[in-house]
């Protein structure tokens, strides 16, 4: 785990490129549009970070703190976001195709217009999250908590086996 927080974008990118992203303190950092594909950021603190438009293809973010992060239009295909904290994160328009969202926490997260094709949000906690207009084709919400979630306008057939949908809008 890194103890020194990078002071700016270039330091942060250098830290990640050197393999020092695991557990790194990257709070509020601006990584918008950055190419972080395949990087390992397990357990990193990216709360409040700007990752809009970033390339997170196959990026490993298990257990990362992404609360209040901006991931609008980010490419998160095949990203490993299991057990991450996406509370209030903005993922509108993001590409989450085949993303691992197992056990992810995302109260009030915004997935509106995102593509969640064949993603794996099993056992995720997405209370009051918005999936308005999202593509949820083949997404596997098995045992996920979608209480109060907004699924209006979401397209495609998803698997909601044993999911909690109390108060969800469909």
């Amino acid at each position, binding site marked *: 785990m890194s103890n020194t927080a990078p002071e700016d974008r270039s330091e942060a990118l250098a830290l990640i490129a050197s393999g020092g992203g695991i557990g790194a303190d990257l709070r509020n950092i601006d990584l918008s549009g950055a190419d972080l594909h395949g990087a390992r950021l*397990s357990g990193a603190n990216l709360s409040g970070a700007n990752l809009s438009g970033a390339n997170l293809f*196959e990026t*490993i973010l*298990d*257990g990362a703190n992404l609360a209040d992060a901006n991931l609008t239009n980010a490419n998160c295909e*095949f*990203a*490993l976001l*299991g*057990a991450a904290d996406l509370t209030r994160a903005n993922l509108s328009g993001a590409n989450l195709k*085949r*993303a*691992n969202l*197992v*056990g992810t926490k995302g109260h009030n997260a915004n997935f509106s217009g995102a593509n969640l094709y*064949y*993603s*794996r*949000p*099993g*056992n995720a906690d997405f209370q009051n999250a918005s999936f308005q207009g999202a593509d949820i084709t083949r997404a*596997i919400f*098995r*045992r996920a908590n979608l209480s109060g979630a907004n699924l209006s306008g979401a397209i495609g057939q998803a698997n909601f086996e*044993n999911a909690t949908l109390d108060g969800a809008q469909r």
Partner: protein
Amino acid sequence: MIVKHFMLNVHEVNSFIAADSETRDAMLIDAGDYDERIEQYLNDEGLNLKKIFITHDHYDHTDGIADYMKRFHPELISGTSPIGGCESQIVKHGDEIRLGRLTGKIYSTPGHTPVGLTLAFLGHVFTGDALFAGSVGGTSNPRDYNTQLAAIRQHIFTLPEDTLVHVGHGPSSTVAIEKRYNPFFV
């Protein structure tokens, strides 16, 4: 260790190249189809395909074997022989596979198929269709289902928690995530 993922067209199945970054010895894990991107990657990275490892005998994991054998002449390793129309060296639970300086260990994870193998290196485990992110591979009866879950608990969930779990279909995961959140286990 180098690990490179390829999603193939057939059933969106995954293939992986695992390699020793120093010796450049490489292994293809599952071969659902011949894919030019894999050959290109091997060439671009200067990797020598020495071995093919097959997790289980389903066509979406085996149909490309003959093409890779013809082009690269690697050693074919699996739990059954012949497989994909080719003779294979049979390995079983507890066996080790050398790849350059790396050593992988074989675990028996049947259920999805009567013979199913998982291959573990330090930090990476390749499960085929035994375990998926948030799911498990399909089985045809309760006995096979129970056998599969028991094998996963015994052999995969006992690996270090930060081990990356590379699966036959869909995204990779970690041992910790699957132990704590996979709905089939918790």
